[in-house]
C-alpha cells in the first residue's frame, strides 16, 4: 500500500512538472533566447512576476534534494547546533554574492555584454574571458571545473533520490538502487531536454511553493505524530516535553566514532562558511538570472536567501524531530546504530512515521521531487550552455535543439550515473563525505572570478594551484581513515587560500609598468 502511494506521488509530480513545461510552448529551434525574445522577456519580468520568478528560482535552485533536503533531515542528530551554520552562512552569502556581482557587472566590458541581449554573454566563462590567450586557457579550466561540478551535483541528486526511494519502496539492494536511479535520471533528463530546457525558470515558479508546502506538512505531521505517541503526561505537557527533547538532541550531537562532536562540528562550520559564501556566485544559474532579471537578481538576493534560510531551518527542525522519533523504544536496532548516514536516517525516520501517518510519505515525496527537479533542470541547462560555449568565438555554438537528441543523451547519462552509483555503493563510500567533497568543487572557480573582479589579467596557474591540492584532499577525504573528515573539509580550503592570494596578486607587467 505505502509503496503504491509513494510511487503515485512521484509519478504525479513528474506529470505535473511536464505540464508546467508545456506552458512555455513547444520546442523552439534553439535552446538559447534570441534578442527579440529577450526584449519581450524584459517586458514580462519588469513587474511582480519577475520578482516572483527571481525569488523562486534562487530558492528552488539551491534547495536541492541531496545536499539540502536529505542532508538536513539526516544530519541534524550528528551535528546538533552546528547544523545551523549552513543557514547562517547561506544568508550571509547573499551579501557576498551581491558585492561581487555588482562589481563584476559594473565592469564596462561585462556590462556591455550583458546589455547586448545575447544569451552567450551570460555564460559564466565570459566573466573570465578578456581577449587574451591566458584568459582563454583559464576559461577552459573553469569550464572543466564547472562541468565537473554540475555532473557531480546531478549525480548526487539522482543517487540520493534513488537510494531513498528504492529503500522505501522495494529493497536495499544496490541493483534496485541502480535501476531506480536509471529510471528517475532518465525521466528527469529526458523531460528537461525534450520540453523544459528553456522553461526551467517557470518550473521553479511551481516547484518553489511545492517544496515549501511539502516541508511544512512534513513538519506538522511529525509534530502531530510525536505529540500523539504514548506518553505519561497530557498533550500540553507533551509539547513542553517535546521542546525540551529537541533542545537535548541539539545540545548532544552524535558524531560517529572516532570523530569528536566538537571537532566534527568545527570542521563542518568552516566548510559551510567557505562554501555557502560563494555558492550562489559560482553557479551558472546565478549569471543567467543576472542576464534575465537584471537588477532584480541583486536586489532580491538577500530576500530570497532569507526565505531559503527559513525553509532550511524548518528542515533542521524536522531533523531534530526525526532523531527523537528514532530514539523511541520500539525502533529497530538497525535504525539506532551510531554510524547511520543521512540517507539511512531519512529512510528509518520515514518508515517509523508512516506506520501511523502513511500520508507523510506523500508530503515527503512532493517536496523531494520538487527539490530534485528544480535543481536538476537548472543544472542541465547550465551544463549545455557551458559545454557548447566556444571560447574563441565567445558565444554558445550549436544551440539547436535538433542536435540535442534527448532520448539518446538521457539514456547515456542515466546509464553512467547508475554505473557510478553501483560502484560507489559497492565500495561503501560514505554518502555524506561525498557531499562534502563534491559540492564545493565549484569553489575552484573563485580565484578566476577574483581576478576578474579586480580587472587584472587571468593566471591559469592559480587555478591549477587550487585544483590539484583540492583533488588530493578530496581523494583522501573519501578514504575510510580517521583523518578523512579533516581532509574532506580541508579540500574547499585550497581554492579559498588561492583566492586570498588572488586578492593581493600582482601580475608582472603591472609591476613593470609601475617601475
Amino acid at each position: 500500500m505505502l509503496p503504491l502511494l509513494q510511487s503515485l506521488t512521484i509519478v504525479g509530480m513528474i506529470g505535473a512538472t511536464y505540464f508546467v513545461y508545456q506552458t512555455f510552448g513547444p520546442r523552439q529551434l534553439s535552446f538559447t533566447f534570441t534578442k527579440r525574445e529577450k526584449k519581450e522577456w524584459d517586458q514580462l519580468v519588469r513587474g511582480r512576476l519577475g520578482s516572483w520568478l527571481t525569488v523562486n528560482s534562487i530558492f528552488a535552485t539551491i534547495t536541492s534534494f541531496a545536499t539540502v533536503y536529505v542532508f538536513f533531515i539526516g544530519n541534524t542528530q550528528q551535528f546538533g547546533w552546528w547544523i545551523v551554520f549552513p543557514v547562517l552562512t547561506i544568508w550571509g552569502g547573499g551579501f557576498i554574492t551581491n558585492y561581487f556581482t555588482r562589481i563584476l557587472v559594473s565592469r564596462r566590458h561585462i556590462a556591455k555584454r550583458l546589455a547586448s541581449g545575447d544569451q552567450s554573454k551570460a555564460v559564466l566563462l565570459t566573466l573570465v574571458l578578456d581577449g587574451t590567450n591566458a584568459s582563454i586557457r583559464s576559461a577552459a579550466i573553469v569550464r572543466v571545473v564547472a562541468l565537473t561540478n554540475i555532473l557531480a551535483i546531478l549525480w548526487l541528486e539522482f543517487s540520493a533520490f534513488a537510494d531513498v526511494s528504492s529503500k522505501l519502496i522495494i529493497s536495499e539492494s544496490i541493483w534496485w538502487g541502480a535501476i531506480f536511479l536509471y529510471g528517475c535520471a532518465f525521466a528527469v533528463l529526458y523531460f528537461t531536454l525534450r520540453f523544459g530546457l528553456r522553461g526551467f525558470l517557470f518550473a521553479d515558479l511551481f516547484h518553489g511553493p511545492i517544496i515549501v508546502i511539502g516541508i511544512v506538512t512534513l513538519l506538522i505531521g511529525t509534530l502531530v505524530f510525536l505529540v500523539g505517541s504514548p506518553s505519561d503526561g497530557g498533550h500540553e505537557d507533551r509539547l513542553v516535553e517535546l521542546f525540551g527533547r529537541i533542545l537535548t538532541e541539539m545540545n548532544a550531537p552524535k558524531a560517529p566514532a572516532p570523530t569528536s562532536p566538537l571537532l566534527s562540528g568545527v570542521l563542518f562550520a568552516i566548510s559551510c562558511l567557505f562554501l555557502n559564501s560563494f555558492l550562489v556566485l559560482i553557479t551558472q544559474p546565478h549569471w543567467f538570472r543576472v542576464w534575465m532579471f537584471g537588477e532584480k537578481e541583486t536586489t532580491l538576493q538577500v530576500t530570497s536567501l532569507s526565505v531559503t534560510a527559513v525553509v532550511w531551518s524548518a528542515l533542521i527542525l524536522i531533523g531534530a524531530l526525526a532523531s527523537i522519533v528514532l530514539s523511541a523504544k520500539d525502533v529497530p536496532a538497525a535504525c539506532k546504530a551510531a554510524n547511520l548516514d543521512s540517507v539511512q536516517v531519512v529512510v528509518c525516520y520515514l518508515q517509523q512515521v508512516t506506520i501511523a501517518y502513511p500520508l507523510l510519505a506523500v508530503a515527503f515525496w512532493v517536496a523531494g521531487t520538487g527539490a530534485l527537479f528544480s535543481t536538476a533542470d537548472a543544472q542541465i541547462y547550465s551544463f549545455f550552455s557551458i559545454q557548447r560555449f566556444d571560447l574563441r568565438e565567445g558565444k554558445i555554438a550549436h544551440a539547436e535543439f535538433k542536435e540535442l537528441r534527448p532520448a539518446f543523451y538521457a539514456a547515456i547519462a542515466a546509464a553512467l550515473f547508475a554505473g557510478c552509483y553501483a560502484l560507489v555503493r559497492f565500495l561503501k563510500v560514505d554518502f555524506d563525505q561525498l557531499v562534502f567533497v563534491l559540492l564545493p568543487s565549484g569553489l575552484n572557480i573563485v580565484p578566476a572570478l577574483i581576478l576578474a573582479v579586480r580587472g587584472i589579467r587571468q593566471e591559469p596557474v592559480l587555478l591549477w594551484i587550487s585544483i590539484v591540492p583540492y583533488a588530493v584532499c578530496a581523494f583522501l577525504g573519501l578514504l575510510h581513515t580517521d583523518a578523512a573528515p579533516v581532509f574532506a573539509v580541508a579540500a574547499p580550503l585550497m581554492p579559498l587560500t588561492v583566492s586570498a592570494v588572488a586578492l593581493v596578486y600582482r601580475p608582472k607587467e603591472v609591476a613593470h609598468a609601475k617601475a
Partner: protein
Amino acid sequence: MRKPEAVSRSRTGPRLRAAPHAIDTKPKLLFVTPIVTFLAAGLTKLVPLDWDIGWKGVFLLVGFAVVGTCLQCIPRRSVLWRAEPGSAQVALKQTITTMRVLVSIVMVLVPVTILATNDKVLSALPRSVEEYLGRLNAETFAGGVVSVAVETERKRNILLFVPVDKRHEEPALLKFQPTTAPQILVSGGTEGAGGSRPGIGGVAGELYILQTTKVVDNLVKGAVMPAFHQFATLALVLSGIFIFVIFIMEILGDLLLSMQPKRLKPS
C-alpha cells in the same frame, strides 16, 4: 466548392463580433460541485439521516470542496486566447481544458465514492456477502472438501458457531492455525477445540471457525476503508497540485500571450 456559411465562419470578423456575449471567464454554474460537496459534508454530520461517513470522510469532503472552489476561482483566461490552428497556444489551451475536465471528474467521483462508503452501506456489505455465501453451491465452487462426521456424544468437543439472531445456519470461514508445540489428542479427549491430529501432514494446530459477516466487516473497516481514505487523500493532494499547475498555465500563458494583441474581449 465551400458553402457560403462555411466561408463566413472562417473569417475573423464575425468571430470577433460574436465574442463579447459568448465568453464567460468565470462561469458561476461550475461552483455547484464544490458547494454541493461542502453541503454534503455538513449534512452528513448535522442531519440525523444515519449517513455516517466518519470524521475522515467529512474532512476529505471539505478538502475537496475547498480545492474545487480554488479550481473554479482560477480565471479562465485561456478561453480568451485567439489561437491559430496548430499553434502552441492551441496546444496549451487544449491541455488546460483537458486538465480542468479531468480534475473536475476527480472532484465529483471521489466525493461521491466517499459518500457511498457510509456506515449504512458498509454494514450492509457483510450481510450481502453472507447471503451470497448462503446461495453459493459449494459443490460447484471447485474448492477443497473435507468430509466430517460428528457423533452425537462427541459434540461437546467441537466448537460450534451459534448465530445470535436465532437463524439455524450461518456461513463461516475455517482457518487452520498451526501451533508451535504439537498437540496430542487422545481419542475422545477434550484437548483443544477443533484440534487436528498430529502426524497428519506433519502439522498440528487449531481449526478456527470465523463468522463470515465479522470477517468481512473487519476487512472493510480495518483494511479497505483506511486504504480508501489514503488514496482519496492522495487524490486530493494531487488534484491540488494539478490545480496549481492549471493556475500557472492560465496566468503565465496569458502573460506570455499578453505581448501579442490577439485576445478576445471578456464578457
